[in-house]
């Protein structure tokens, strides 16, 4: 018998799959490393690898030290952290809502956070810390509102998405009220937060996001083990001993906090969460815990888009515009694909 399934064959297949996942993850990491070095080396002036290495090692190199430590490194770190946050959030949302189109952008969660940030900047002139707290509060509030209004125990998506679009429209109206009537001097800062941009980020804006990532990623990773069980369907997951409700709440809460923190620092970088989820699953395969891979993919995406936005054209474009231009056509493609398949 040729096709007999033996336990050895299953183990062998499993082993092969794990090896290929490790290889792919390593590949993503290498890409991330290459992109990061590009971000440090390349710019108005191009530094050599040894110069960058010396600066990072703590030595003072005339000219290079300031550019790298004050400008390029914070920018790179912000891109890295925000990209990871958005990427992980995208994957988690997509899995929990069982719909590749569900993500914090479309559901209005990012809009909620940026609305709070804009009000903080234009009305209350608050410090960075208050902005971050407000963004997180608004993000969580939006999620609660979303699920409260959709009025369903299961997170069925059609209604959820429409309600998300409604919330988004509402937040946008509030945002445009404040940007039209706000103080002209505060406007550039507010617009920066609306478009998703890495300009003018300094190192002292980052520790909170950094700490949150360090704290929350292990949580997401741990519960992410169960995501693959959730992928099989809620009943199956429950029968395999997963506490579905608890898993969902913890995963949602952590990802919303991550998204809101990242939004407070860089503004909503459009479509990163939307792109990272499905594409990571495509690269890594549906099985397995893809949370880390999605984070790395998101970071790659943001760094690459920022490089393109800064240097590919005569004008410098904020990173959100570039990801928006990539993401919107992809959303449309996904839609066509989904409605062709019929079932969705």
């Amino acid at each position, binding site marked *: 018998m040729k096709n007999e399934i033996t336990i050895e064959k299953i183990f062998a297949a499993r082993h092969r799959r794990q090896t290929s996942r490790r290889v792919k993850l390593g590949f993503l990491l290498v890409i991330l490393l290459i992109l990061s070095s590009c971000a440090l080396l390349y710019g108005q002036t191009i530094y050599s690898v040894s110069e960058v290495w010396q600066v990072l090692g703590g030595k003072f190199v005339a000219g290079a030290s300031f550019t790298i430590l004050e400008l390029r490194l914070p920018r790179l770190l912000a891109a890295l952290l925000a990209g990871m946050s958005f990427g992980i959030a995208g994957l988690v949302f997509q899995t929990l809502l069982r719909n590749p189109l569900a993500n914090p952008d479309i559901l209005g969660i990012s809009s909620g956070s940026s609305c709070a940030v804009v009000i903080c900047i234009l009305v209350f002139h608050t410090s960075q810390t208050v902005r971050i707290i407000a963004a997180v509060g608004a993000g969580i509030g939006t999620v609660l509102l979303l699920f409260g209004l959709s009025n369903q125990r299961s997170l069925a998506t059609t209604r959820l*998405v*429409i309600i998300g679009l*409604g919330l988004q429209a509402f937040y946008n109206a509030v945002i445009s009220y404040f940007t039209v009537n706000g103080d002209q001097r505060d406007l550039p800062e507010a617009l920066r937060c609306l478009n998703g941009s890495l300009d003018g980020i300094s190192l002292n804006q980052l520790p909170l996001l950094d700490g949150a990532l360090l704290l929350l990623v292990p949580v997401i990773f741990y519960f992410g083990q169960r995501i693959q069980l959730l992928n099989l369907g809620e009943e199956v997951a429950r029968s395999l001993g997963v506490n579905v409700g608890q898993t969902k709440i913890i995963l949602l809460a952590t990802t919303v906090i991550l998204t809101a923190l990242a939004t407070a620092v860089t503004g909503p970088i459009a479509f990163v969460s939307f792109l990272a989820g499905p594409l990571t699953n495509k690269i890594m395969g549906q099985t397995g815990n893809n949370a880390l891979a999605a984070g790395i993919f998101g970071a790659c995406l943001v760094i690459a888009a920022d490089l393109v936005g800064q240097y590919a054209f005569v004008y410098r474009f904020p990173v959100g515009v570039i990801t928006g231009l990539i993401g919107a056509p992809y959303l449309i493609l996904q839609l066509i694909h989904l409605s062709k398949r019929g079932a969705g």
Partner: protein
Amino acid sequence: MKISSYLKTRWQLQSGVVFLLVILLLLACLASVFWGVKDISGHKILTLLLFHHNEQSLLSSIVDKRIVRMAFGLLCGAALGVAGVLMQSVTRNPLADPSILGINTGASFFVVCGIAFFKISTAGQYVIVAFIGALVAAGLVFGIVALGKRLDALTLLLAGTGVSMMFSSLVTIVILVKQEAMDQFRFWQVGSLGSASVMGIKVFVPLFLLSLILAVACAPGLDALMLGSEVAQSLGVNAVLISLTACLAGIALCATATALAGPIAFIGLLATHFTRLIFGSEVKKVLPLSALVGALFLTSADVIGRLVSDTAEISVGIITALVGAPVLIFLARRMKVRAL
């Protein structure tokens, strides 16, 4: 006997509501002339209009401006109300508002390109450019939906959102490249009746009437289409022709209003649903009444926006979105939409 008495009560109720709406519209019109940052009494306005209509005073110029603005608001509201009915009937989707379908953003992108690269400034130029943009956006959205197999609520909405997000990225790029276009565009973009001008109204009226005639001509066909395209065909309705004409009329109305006032969201949605709630879903009936309700809503929103704050008025676009978004959410909660 029972049916006839039921019909009679319904007819009485409906004509009562129409009467009430007309009264409310008149009141809103009066309020929009009397009230503003500076309140003017009715007596003063009457004497001004009747006896001193050639006088050049500050007061008369204020009144002139407000009357133009009121007329402009009525036109925009009516146009958006009719556009809403047409879009909803053609797509057979209760949530299809021009703003949700991305038509406003398409028009925005073309207008910002016009401002930045071709230095457009007259009302006519705005209208033409916005109309092209609206057509492109609508073509994209319907094309996306047509490529799939089903026309369901969510696909249409998400196609609209996708197209709209793409255009808004492009808008940001144009603004960043052409900084000087930013100021002209920023105020246009929120949707306000403050930009009303006699010139704009002169451009608007013929387009409005033309589209309205087209829409009324399509109404019986649209009613038949509501029963399904097979039934419509058997009733001798050319489904494609009717849908295309209605769509074109809807886009023209929405594009004109958008070009002259800026993107004003949700009036189509609000007016159509309010009208349907009371008068049923017959397009023939809903069409004129939705125009009435749209005009009433927009004029009231404008008055409210002017009264809320002394220093800076809130643009109608913002008020209609603040009211419309919760209504959209409410409708989504009531709707039995198929899961995607």
